[in-house]
């Protein structure tokens, strides 16, 4: 795609701004900031990738993946800002998820250990884990509040914090994993997923593009489940004291 063609894509942004002005949506400012940030960030990443691909050095790959995980963890942790130490818990959950995904993919030789493969696929894994983590934190807090009385009753009958919270954790993990499972059922019928689209545009045959897409979809399903389970089990102890008491200050509603 030529630079002229690239610049012409700004027509879409211009159109959105016009729509926003016309309907008084007040989105212009955010749109401009978003557009500039997207362009700068992606261009920058493009150059970084260029360098990392050239160097083919493991430390750079690892460093880049670590930056991805850090940014993702920080972003997802905002959803649970009342939970003590939430950033570290999310960081650990996303890291475990990425390490497991890479162990399987590289260990079974599904993808070659080169930056062209490891970095984009890690990006998808980490990005997906981030979305799942944010969703899970949101859901965990609302489910804890909805089930607060049940938890108190269970504790009062002599349940440990873990026993009392288990039904809530199950519900939350399910909620965090269902979207991607639904996605598995409709993919290809409703939309052609991004990776496949990209490969086809870049000239890869649809047959090969489909194989890659399946790899991604299957691995992201496991990623969602792993991230949700690890994060749920890392987070619930923060909601209780050592004496199996519900910590009301860690939930959004007080009293």
């Amino acid at each position: 795609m030529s630079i002229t063609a690239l610049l012409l894509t700004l027509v879409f942004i211009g159109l959105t701004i016009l729509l926003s002005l016309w309907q008084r949506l007040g989105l212009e400012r955010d749109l401009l900031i978003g557009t500039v940030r997207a362009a700068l960030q992606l261009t920058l990443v493009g150059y970084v990738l260029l360098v990392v691909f050239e160097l083919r050095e493991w430390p750079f790959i690892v460093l880049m993946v670590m930056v991805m995980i850090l940014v993702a963890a920080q972003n997802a942790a905002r959803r649970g800002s009342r939970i003590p130490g939430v950033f570290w818990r999310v960081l650990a959950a996303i890291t475990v998820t990425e390490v497991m995904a890479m162990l399987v993919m590289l260990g079974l030789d599904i993808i070659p250990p080169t930056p062209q493969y490891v970095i984009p696929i890690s990006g998808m894994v980490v990005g997906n884990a981030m979305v799942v983590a944010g969703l899970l934190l949101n859901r965990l807090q609302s489910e804890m509040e909805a089930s607060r009385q049940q938890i108190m009753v269970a504790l009062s009958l002599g349940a440990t914090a873990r026993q009392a919270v288990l039904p809530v954790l199950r519900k939350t993990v399910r909620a965090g994993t269902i979207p991607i499972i639904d996605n598995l059922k409709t993919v290809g019928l409703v939309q052609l997923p991004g990776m496949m689209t990209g490969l086809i545009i870049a000239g890869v045959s649809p047959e090969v593009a489909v194989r890659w897409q399946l790899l991604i979809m299957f691995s992201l399903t496991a990623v969602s489940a792993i991230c949700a389970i690890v994060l749920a089990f890392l987070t619930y102890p923060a909601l209780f004291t050592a004496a199996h008491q519900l910590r009301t200050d860690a939930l959004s509603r007080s009293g």
Partner: protein
Amino acid sequence: MTNSNLLPVPEQEPLFLLDDLWKSRFDGKNRVNVLEGVSASVEAGRIVTVVGPSGSGKSTLMLLLNRLEEPDSGRITYLGRDLREWNVLDLRRQVGMVFQQPVMLSGSVRENVLYGPRLVGEERDSDPEALLGRVGLDPSLADRDARELSGGQQQRVALARVLANYPAVLLLDEPTSALDENASRMIEELVVGLQREKGLTCIWVTHDLSQALRLDGETWVFDSGRLVESGSTMEVLSQPRHPAAREYLKSRLERGEAR
């Protein structure tokens, strides 16, 4: 010095000893005291009714007694030992709690009743049908979904569920406030029966003064986080000494007459 000819009289140790309990909570932005220096004792086998305006700290006190919450300062001893020295899970089984809202756990009535015993692997020794019978429920309800029962039935399931743990103490936080007259009386008779037969100690929060009179034990009056009056129920309700207690009782009686 004690006279060596006399056997030492074993002093009856109180079951619960509450020593200068303070507790505050965040109420939106401000920290407000819910309990201000509450001291009291409960003898084994008694029924204590706890009365006082809403928000005077009664429910909070209940949560402290089975350590679902912690006081900011002060000390509670149970059977002569600080609550914090007890295994909290054992303590909660011994000091059972019935909440105001009968909250059913998911599953059947039987699963609800067996919840406590299952936690410690004692479900074989439990007889859920017999427990249901004891709280006046038809044992054939055991396999029904607990959430489908009426409020009165659910509160009785909640009671059976606590009793399945063989508690020595029952904390009851307005267990009958959502129930009709018949269902309330049934629960009262049941608990009084257990107290008489099994020596169960009961601490019962209520808004209903006639209920306190029927339970006829000891009564504590709370006002703004303070225990302002305590004594035998008859005495406290007929001749309150503290002005706040007098005012509360008067307002309750007026409301009762208007009904």
